[in-house]
């Protein structure tokens, strides 16, 4: 694209369409752009290279070279660590301006630390306490995020602590209730804050948005102890909080793919609503403990209350600016958190109605804004709702068939009319 324009500049100059100065400016602009993309490309390849080499070293050592003496094995296992440290030191001293150097060397060191610890464990047959291994690895790597401003190490750190959280809380039995994850997550907050402030639109920030929001969703479950069922309330509020974060002016003006909070929040709320729409969901009691006071003092209940309160504050903050004139139904769903306290079947009907309304609202918005994505999203939501209802109602096959045909036709017709409207507008 840029080459084509530059080639045609000569012609435009001759025809006096642009001045020499403008032509020069255009050339300079494309030159700079090319350099930027070149830098980005070498960053990507550097990082990928470091990840592959790091993993490769781990695998080569995992072969367990029996014929080497213990001392040789130990010395070899320290080699990648020393190389990584030297590279990082060089990056700090001589290449402090180069993202490629800093990212690549710190990613390499990240893997070298892991390889080193696991190899020492191999040599001495230290059995796999995976949790303490990951924590040690992550804590030893965390400083690299700040010393070398390495966002990739920061992302790897998030993956690491999330894996630790899953391993200690979900994968092992009996699971231990561990809050260490939240403390470890705090370690990354200053870096994330800095990224959002200084490089809001960079890809690193985009990945952080996604990694952090998904990691929190995965790990919120760690707080569940006896009253696991109360966790739905916490999740509902968490998704609502995400939704409001995504709706802040900072995130709202960014592209949708950057706005992980909005997407995760919205999809999360809808998922829970669909779950609420089942009758069996309300069968179970939200309280598992023996007495009410025990429930009210349980960690799940306290966290649920705190999150609901934050969601309510954010709701007020967002809507007070517009005098509560632009409140969407989705923003009010978290108020359903009050329902489980008086758990009853009727609320499944309320949930059904809300999902249906949100679906219809999205379809309407799609038509109004001439947006095929929104339109189909609304239709999809209604379809999922209908499919869900098939599970707990005894409708005849004929009726189900007719319903599906109707919905299918709805998809066709709605898309057809929008496309037709578009064509007409273009003409």
């Amino acid at each position: 694209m840029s080459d084509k324009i530059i080639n045609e500049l000569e012609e435009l100059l001759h025809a006096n369409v642009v001045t020499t100065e403008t032509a020069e400016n255009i050339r300079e602009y494309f030159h700079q752009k090319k350099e930027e993309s070149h830098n980005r490309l070498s960053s990507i390849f550097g990082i990928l290279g470091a990840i592959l080499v790091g993993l490769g070293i781990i695998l080569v050592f995992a072969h367990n070279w029996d014929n080497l003496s213990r001392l040789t094995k130990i010395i070899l296992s320290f080699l990648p660590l020393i190389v990584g440290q030297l590279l990082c030191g060089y990056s700090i001293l001589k290449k402090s301006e180069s993202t490629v150097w800093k990212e690549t060397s710190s990613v390499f060191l990240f893997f070298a630390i892991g390889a080193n610890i696991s190899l020492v464990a191999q040599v001495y047959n230290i059995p796999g306490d995976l949790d303490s291994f990951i924590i040690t690895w992550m804590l030893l790597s965390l400083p690299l995020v700040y010393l070398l401003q390495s966002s990739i190490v920061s992302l790897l750190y998030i993956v690491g602590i999330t894996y630790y959280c899953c391993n200690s809380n979900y994968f092992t039995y009996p699971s231990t209730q561990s809050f260490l994850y939240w403390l470890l997550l705090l370690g990354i907050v200053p870096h994330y804050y800095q990224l959002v402030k200084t490089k809001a639109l960079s890809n690193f920030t985009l990945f952080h948005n996604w990694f952090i929001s998904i990691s929190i969703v995965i790990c919120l479950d760690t707080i569940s102890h006896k009253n696991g069922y109360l966790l739905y309330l916490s999740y509902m509020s968490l998704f609502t909080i995400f939704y409001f974060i995504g709706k802040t002016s900072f995130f709202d003006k960014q592209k949708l793919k950057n706005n992980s909070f909005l997407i995760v929040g919205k999809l999360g709320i809808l998922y829970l609503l669909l779950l609420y729409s089942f009758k069996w969901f309300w069968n179970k009691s939200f309280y598992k403990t023996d007495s009410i006071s025990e429930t009210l003092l349980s960690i799940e209940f306290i966290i649920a209350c705190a999150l609901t309160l934050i969601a309510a504050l954010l709701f007020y903050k967002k809507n007070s600016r517009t005098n509560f004139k632009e409140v969407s139904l989705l923003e009010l769903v978290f108020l359903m958190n009050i329902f489980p306290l008086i758990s009853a079947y009727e609320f499944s009907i309320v949930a059904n109605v809300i999902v249906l309304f949100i679906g219809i609202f999205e379809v309407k918005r799609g038509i109004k804004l001439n947006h095929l994505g929104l339109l189909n999203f609304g239709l999809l939501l209604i379809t999922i709702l209908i499919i869900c209802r098939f599970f707990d109602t005894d409708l005849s096959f004929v009726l189900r068939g007719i319903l599906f045909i109707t919905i299918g036709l709805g998809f066709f017709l709605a898309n057809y009319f929008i496309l037709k409207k578009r064509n007409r507008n273009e003409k």
Partner: protein
Amino acid sequence: MKNKKITLLIFILVIVAQFYVPLQMMFNQEDIMKTGTEFKFQTAPIDPYDPLRGKYITLFFKEREITVQNNIKWRSSETVFATLTTDKNGFAKISSISKMKPKNSESYIKTKISLGYMNSKIIIDFPFNRYYMNEDIAQKAEKIYQEFSIKKKNETYALVAVKNGEAVLIDVRINEVSIKDLASKK
């Protein structure tokens, strides 16, 4: 410039920490191997896989049970101290377990309860159930064990050094020969 100096200083501290952790692990294990008491635990090996550290054989120990007076106070995955003795055949045996560190200089290991049965039997997890091997011979090692176990007289044991509650697995042997040597000869 001053900023860079501080960064460098912190980086050096980080390097020290990055060296300290594995070195401390190493020296601790070396010390147990050199000055600890050696025990032979009768065992049966099988061959699994760890993505980071490679192939290893998991050891299933025969003497993991102990009968206690009242089992109510023992919970699964609770940390306990198991005192070790040697039986008449020269293999290790748990003589008692306690929640507190044994005060006398007997050999003991810090470990966890795997399961507690109602009939006051308790099963202990040993903290040295992995023996890392070369990926080419780990599977062979398991086969060798199976072949040997068909024969009548067969003693497979793990040689473990114990000191101050910690244990290091030194070797796995079948009839006094290291399983590594047996497997690599085959």
